């Protein structure tokens, strides 16, 4: 009898091999975090913000997830002592806002440039000094103007260079089908909008794998994920002094304005810091940002991709004779099961072993690699696994039942449909086992044919 069940098992293996051979399905889709920083952050400080975000969202990520920093530097080479990194950041804000004002249209770059220089002129002409002329008392106005003009030209080039760099990084990181949930703080949304807009032009299919959530937003909009009906969201505190100032400045000069505040603190805080204000989940602003961020995660099509998180399938194939109740284990004549055991990296955890589970049944565990996420597309919302089972001659009934496990923090267990008594298999049974995932909910069915 044992040999017959081994034969059945081998038949299943043979049936699975075409799927197993699809090597491209062996890498589970992974959701990563991303962050673009605002002004006046060193790289370690920006990294600290990303670390804080990672701590708050850790439960939603797998062990394979990475945290990517799209760092935009605080200062620049050759800055010299006469021009602070803060001013350079302000120049970048003006230029990026000017570009947003013309919709990022390259044909309207001259218009953006005019707005940019108008903003610089207005800023430096402000009574008592604006952001660009203030703070360095040892410089004359003429010296400030000269340096500002020089750095304004450099800013245009640097912004282009850094945006291009962001796009390259996005392509490199997401080229394998992975996904990215990105947060942007302050000026970071201007950078993210520019880079993601270009990314979506260059690689529209990959851009669907990215969502963006903004905090303390200096931009006039939040980049929208292509093909998604749900908007990416932002959170800006009504007390955010930095954004309020930028908004007033942009409004007065006909530039695209940062969106209106949509959150507030329970106490009067004018703060702008990402960690202090927007990650503080004891306050409404922090709660709102984190809720938006997690909602963005939920909107990623990862939720509907079997290949991303499916790690484990157990199937019990139960044989019996006509008239036996296969749901009653005490009356099963025989059974065996096979398993696919995948760890987070898609590596086989256990290879074939046999155990007996009851006096009248033999239980066989067998492992397969990527078997169930097989097929042609690991990102598919539905996968069908053809089963072919060689039946012992005396068997006229067959039931398949089991569980499908989803790993990560979305752990689902779904009992696969029990088909009940079947007859007339003539020693072979053929069936399709289909597992689908929609809005994160797994369903499955077995159909004999």
């Amino acid at each position, binding site marked *: 009898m044992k040999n017959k069940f081994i034969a059945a098992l081998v038949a299943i293996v043979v049936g699975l091999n075409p799927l197993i051979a699809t090597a491209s399905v062996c890498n589970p889709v992974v959701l990563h975090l991303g962050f673009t920083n605002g002004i006046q952050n060193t790289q370690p400080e920006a990294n600290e913000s990303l670390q804080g975000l990672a*701590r708050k969202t850790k439960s939603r990520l797998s062990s394979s997830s990475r945290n990517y920093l799209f760092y935009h530097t605080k200062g620049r080479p050759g800055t010299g002592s006469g021009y602070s990194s803060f001013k350079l950041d302000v120049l970048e804000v003006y230029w990026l806002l000017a570009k947003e004002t013309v919709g990022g249209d390259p044909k309207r770059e001259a218009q953006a440039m005019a707005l940019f220089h108008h903003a610089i002129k207005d800023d430096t002409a402000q009574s008592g000094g604006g952001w660009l002329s203030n703070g360095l008392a040892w410089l004359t106005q003429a010296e400030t103007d000269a340096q500002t003009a020089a750095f304004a030209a450099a800013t245009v080039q640097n912004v282009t260079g850094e945006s291009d760099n*962001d796009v390259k990084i996005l392509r490199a990181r997401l080229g394998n089908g992975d996904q990215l949930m990105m947060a942007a703080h302050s000026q970071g949304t201007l950078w993210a909008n520019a880079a993601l807009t270009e990314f979506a032009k260059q690689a529209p299919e990959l851009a669907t794998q990215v969502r963006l959530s903004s905090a303390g937003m200096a931009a006039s909009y939040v980049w929208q994920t292509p093909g998604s009906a749900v908007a990416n969201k932002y959170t800006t505190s009504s007390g955010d002094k930095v954004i309020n100032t930028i908004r007033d400045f942009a409004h007065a000069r006909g530039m695209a304005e940062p969106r209106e505040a949509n959150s507030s603190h329970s106490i009067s805080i004018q703060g702008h810091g990402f960690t202090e204000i927007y990650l503080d989940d004891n306050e409404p602003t922090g709660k709102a940002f984190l809720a938006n961020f997690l909602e963005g995660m939920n909107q990623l099509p990862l939720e509907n991709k079997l290949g991303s998180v499916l790690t484990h399938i157990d199937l019990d194939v139960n044989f019996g004779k006509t008239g036996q109740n296969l749901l009653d284990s005490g009356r099963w004549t025989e059974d065996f099961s096979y398993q696919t055991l995948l760890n987070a990296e898609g590596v086989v955890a256990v290879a074939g072993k046999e155990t007996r589970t009851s006096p009248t049944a033999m239980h066989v565990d067998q492992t397969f690699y990527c078997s169930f996420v097989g097929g042609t597309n690991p990102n598919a919302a539905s996968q069908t696994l053809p089963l072919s089972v060689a039946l012992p001659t005396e068997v006229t009934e067959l039931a398949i039942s089991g569980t499908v496990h989803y790993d990560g923090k979305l752990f689902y267990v779904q009992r696969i449909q029990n088909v009940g008594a079947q007859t007339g298999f003539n020693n072979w049974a053929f069936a399709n086992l289909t597992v689908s995932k929609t809005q994160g909910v797994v369903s499955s069915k077995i159909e004999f044919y």
Partner: protein
Amino acid sequence: MKNTAILTFALLLAACSGGAGNSPSSASTTPTTPSAPSPPAPAKGSPYGQLSSTETALVGTDTDGNGVRDDVDSWVQTTYSDASTRAAASTYVHWLTWTMVRSARAHVTTSEELDAMSESSACWAEKAQATLGDKAPKVAEVEALVFNTYARTKAYLAWDASLNGTPSSFSAAPCEHTSEVPAP
């Protein structure tokens, strides 16, 4: 039966062996050909190698040669009570100090180096959070300690500025991925 299992297992491994997938190290977008000469061989006792007078001033007195200036070393010992967090903090301060020497030598920081530094930073933060919670010192506090002179601040900011969009990342388990601080 056993043979069947082994055969299947082997087939599967063969089918999947080419797809490591989520490797953090992709091609750096930073130029990889520094114009400065190779760093000199490390001198005994200093993890930064042979230092010029400028570099010596930046690094400061590091009696035990652990890459951390003595006064910052004392702060680490005082601030953290457990050896594990102290070690993580020391490594991260070593990295921060490294940035000044790297800057002085005008060597380009690669994405891989920045990844390693980020892992160290994340590991330090993880351990400090676990032991001190919200009272754990922030990066800005450590920066203020390490870069406590004009020259040190200038060197650090020059290093930061040189990154100019260099990507970086850290893993979900940073303390499992920390590595030695390289020669600057």
